[in-house]
């Protein structure tokens, strides 16, 4: 009979396959398989370094193209041209042919040259422009100095020529030479004019002063507009300076110093007419340069915006192509035979699909040599491949966060789909909050497509778990109705089972309720009459605590049953008789009994007027059951003594069974097999194909491995395989001891751990009651316009705080606690988590996970 198809219940059946592909279509085959995303290739060239592999050249070439594309992107960002992002949901890229890729490489090469030459000339021109601008400023500012300086040449001369002149002489001589020649050249004074960064002015002045010992006259002015440094594209503040000094050597020195300080020295003529000509010339040149500059920039912008249209698609294509060649590098490549041999894991039930894909590629290429796919036997552990859809994906993710399930064991995510949201809801039980959460979840699902594009990280996380939120909210609506809580208020859906006993002439005082009728009970959830009473918590705490224990017991029993299913599936009966059965009896005889007692106690009418009885405390009963077996504090039912002693003994007997049965059975089995002359598989030899046994392949030579008949039935030595280990009794025994101790202690601690259900639901309810009494509660008592305004304000506060604290914060905390209950309390009962994840070669996955390509895909 054909095996059942893969279900999410277990990880998919996996096969190790071997592919023989003709060299010509290797690239196309890998491309098609990448689109399919169902094969995980193994590295057959483990001993070769990355540089020795066959397709390293192609990868280098693609790396270069990728670098060029990134260069365009950087240029576009610099120019502020927006990138047209690629929406992979809408647009599909046809698988490129080799010529497409060659064309792309050539094109990007050409474009790179063009863009970089444009860039270069742009930079040169820009530099020229800055220089000219600076020169213009120098001319303007220096001209101002000169005009001013001509007025007091005498003063300058006095201060430079005559060092020992008394200071006061200045005043006397000031007007004594009105007709002195108004020229600097006559005084043998030269000058240097230039531009310097404003930050360096102070240092510049100091250095000049020290080296020239004060033999200078410096004048400077700030350039009001910031200038752009062409090298860094940053704007800098600069100053114009003019330094007067006499003597050629000193001038040369000043020039050198200014150059070393990074100042630009410009040629300025002393004569004002010549200077005017210079200004005209500079202006004209500046205009020219600016024109050319504008042209260059528009050309560059046009070029880049043209590139921006298809850059994303190119980037994705190149990324895919690179992944293809990286995969091809994993293949064994036989140059002589021109065949590629690949090995990998794929789901057994998808083999036909892979086969037909190969066929398709072959047909399209029109090749006479068929591609061969061969299933091979191996004793390696297959990877765990759990298929998901958009609903189960998030649930699977929270399970995978804990570990990867062992190959073919029960997928722990299956029960989690219900138990995780349900236990969350037990803690989050409030109808009002649940409805808000439900509408949020429904909104996220309704607007699934547009919201997918939101990249805000926190929202993306919530969006990813939208189906979890949906199930959680649905269950919370249910538990909210059961708890009869809506924003901490109660709903009067049905008739109460209680009525107040009102004495004659009642005015004020304590009232006690009584049952309306012996035959009527509140049909759904908690009776609303409890709401607001003095002993409300007394009742609900007892109820919720007992409920936590019962739900915990049910959850753990349910989880434990999966270990039976696992043992059956793996055909290990000893796990049933040595682990599952004794464990189950142990757990049930203590906690199953406790749950039975809780339920029984509820069903007894203790205050029956005909036969009133004292209700026993169940906690005391359980404690006495262990500490004083046979002693009954207050009886719950007749014959209780014997039942409890029996159950206690039954539980105790399970401990040695748990401890010894499995190890001794395994030893017996092992010894029996040995006595008959069998030996373990791993001890000697095994039949294998290209299994990555390096010793073997090296021995036979890399090329002969490809020979078909030998490759399939080769006897190889496999000593380092992890699976068929030598049987060691001590190790098995230690494992079992640990397992037993852990199991028995965990039965107690895990049951206690479920009390968090009570604690969190109590906290949630009390917190919402406090919020009500602090905001809307008092506001509702006010009247008039002031009261209306007050209500509006407090309602806003109430609603916002409800959403932030009670839904988001409390929700996260309840979720974490529920997650823990799934991970620890439930998974520890059955799941091994000893698998390794299936990571197929898939373009879809690659594009989703690549950070680099993320900015190109919308």
């Amino acid at each position: 009979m054909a095996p059942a198809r893969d279900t999410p219940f277990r990880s998919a059946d996996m096969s190790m396959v071997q592919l023989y592909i003709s060299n010509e279509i290797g690239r196309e085959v890998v491309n098609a398989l990448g689109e399919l995303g169902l094969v995980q290739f193994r590295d057959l060239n483990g001993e070769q370094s990355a540089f020795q592999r066959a397709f390293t050249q192609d990868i280098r070439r693609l790396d270069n193209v990728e670098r060029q594309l990134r260069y365009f992107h950087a240029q576009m960002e610099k120019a502020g041209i927006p990138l047209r992002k690629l929406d992979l949901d809408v647009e599909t890229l046809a698988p490129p042919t080799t010529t497409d890729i060659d064309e792309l490489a050539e094109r990007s090469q050409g474009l790179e040259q063009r863009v970089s030459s444009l860039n270069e000339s742009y930079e040169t021109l820009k530099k020229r422009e800055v220089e000219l601008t600076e020169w213009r400023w120098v001319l303007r500012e220096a001209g101002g100095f000169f005009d001013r300086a001509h007025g007091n040449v005498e003063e300058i001369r006095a201060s430079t020529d005559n060092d020992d002149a008394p200071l006061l002489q200045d005043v006397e001589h000031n007007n004594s030479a009105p007709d002195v020649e108004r020229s600097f050249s006559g005084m043998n004074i030269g000058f240097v004019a230039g531009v310097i960064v404003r930050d360096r002015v102070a240092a510049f002045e100091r250095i000049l002063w020290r080296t020239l010992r004060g033999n200078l006259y410096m004048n400077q002015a700030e350039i009001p507009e910031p200038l752009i440094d062409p090298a860094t594209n940053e704007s800098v503040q600069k100053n114009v300076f003019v330094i007067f000094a006499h003597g050629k050597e000193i001038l040369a020195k000043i020039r050198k110093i200014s150059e070393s300080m990074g100042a630009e020295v410009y040629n300025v003529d002393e004569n004002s007419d010549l200077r005017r000509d210079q200004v005209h010339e500079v202006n004209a040149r500046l205009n020219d340069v600016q024109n050319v500059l504008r042209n260059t920039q528009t050309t560059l912008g046009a070029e880049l915006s043209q590139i921006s249209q298809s850059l994303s698609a190119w980037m994705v294509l190149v990324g895919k192509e690179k992944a293809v060649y990286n995969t091809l590098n994993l293949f064994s490549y036989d140059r002589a035979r021109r065949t590629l041999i690949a090995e990998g894991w794929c789901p057994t039930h998808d083999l036909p699909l892979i086969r037909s894909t190969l066929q398709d590629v072959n047909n399209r290429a029109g090749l006479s040599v068929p591609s061969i796919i061969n299933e091979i036997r191996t004793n390696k552990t297959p990877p765990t491949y759990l298929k998901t859809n958009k609903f189960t994906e998030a649930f699977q993710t929270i399970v995978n966060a804990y570990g990867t399930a062992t190959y073919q064991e029960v997928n722990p995510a299956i029960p989690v789909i219900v138990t995780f949201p349900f236990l969350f809801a037990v803690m989050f039980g409030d109808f009002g909050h649940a409805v808000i959460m439900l509408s949020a979840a429904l909104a996220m699902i309704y607007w699934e497509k547009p919201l997918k594009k939101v990249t805000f990280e926190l929202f993306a996380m919530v969006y990813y778990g939208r189906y979890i939120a949906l199930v959680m909210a649905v269950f919370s609506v249910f538990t909210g109705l059961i708890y009869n809580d809506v924003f901490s208020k109660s709903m009067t859906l049905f008739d109460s089972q209680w009525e107040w006993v009102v004495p004659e002439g009642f005015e004020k005082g304590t009232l006690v309720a009584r049952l309306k009728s012996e035959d009527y009970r509140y049909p759904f959830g908690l009776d609303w009459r409890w709401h607001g009473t003095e002993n409300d918590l007394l009742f609900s705490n007892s109820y919720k605590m007992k409920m936590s224990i019962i739900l915990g017991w049910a959850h753990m029993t349910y989880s434990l049953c999966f270990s039976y299913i696992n043992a059956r599936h793996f055909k290990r009966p000893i796990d049933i008789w040595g682990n599952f059965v004794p464990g189950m009896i142990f757990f049930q005889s203590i906690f199953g009994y406790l749950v039975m007692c809780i339920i029984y106690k509820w069903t007894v009418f203790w205050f029956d007027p005909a036969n009133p009885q004292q209700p026993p405390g169940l906690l005391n009963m359980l404690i006495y059951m262990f500490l004083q077996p046979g002693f009954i504090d207050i009886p719950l039912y007749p014959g209780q003594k014997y039942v409890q002693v029996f159950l206690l003994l039954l539980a105790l007997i399970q401990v040695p069974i748990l401890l010894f049965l499995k190890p001794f059975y395994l030893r017996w089995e092992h010894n029996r097999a040995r006595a008959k002359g069998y030996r373990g598989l791993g001890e000697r030899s095994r039949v294998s194909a290209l299994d990555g046994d390096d010793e073997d392949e090296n021995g036979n030579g890399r090329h002969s491995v490809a020979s078909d008949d030998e490759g399939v039935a080769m006897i190889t030595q496999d000593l380092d395989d992890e699976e068929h280990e030598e049987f060691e009794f001590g190790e098995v025994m230690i494992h079992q001891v640990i397992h037993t101790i852990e199991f028995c202690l965990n039965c107690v601690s895990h049951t206690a751990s479920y009390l968090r259900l009570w604690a969190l639901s109590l906290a949630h309810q009390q917190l919402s009651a406090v919020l009500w009494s602090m905001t809307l509660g008092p506001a509702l008592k006010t009247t008039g316009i002031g009261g209306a305004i007050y209500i509006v304000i407090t309602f806003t506060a109430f609603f916002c705080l409800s959403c932030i604290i009670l839904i988001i914060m409390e929700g996260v905390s309840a979720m974490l606690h529920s997650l823990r209950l799934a991970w620890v309390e439930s998974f520890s009962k059955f799941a091994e988590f000893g698998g390794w994840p299936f990571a197929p070669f898939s373009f879809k996955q690659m594009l989703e996970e690549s950070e680099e390509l993320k900015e190109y895909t919308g």
Partner: protein
Amino acid sequence: MANGWSIFVGLAVIVAMCVGAWVFAPKGENQVYGTYFTISLPSRPPTSFTTPTGTDETNPLTFIYLSNPPPKNSLWRSSLILSFVSCYLMWAITFLAQLHPLIEPRRSDLRKDYVHH
């Protein structure tokens, strides 16, 4: 109306719902198969999934693939039944806790007009 027997009535209802879930759970292709069928559709005509291609007919695996009936959706089944049972459990616990209550509601802030409601 609602007395101790309601627990068993509720149980019967839930069992009926579970049987209903078992029988009427969405059949046909398990949803998880949807993901990769759509991937491969653009490159190939959909008919190639239902009719074997000539060269593949001799292959035993292709035969298995085609003769295998699509499984019942175990995910729907198990999830629905588990949800029903969990919800029943919670309802039953709440109901039982109020069946023979050991304490009565007690409050002293009631107004005279309210007490008879």
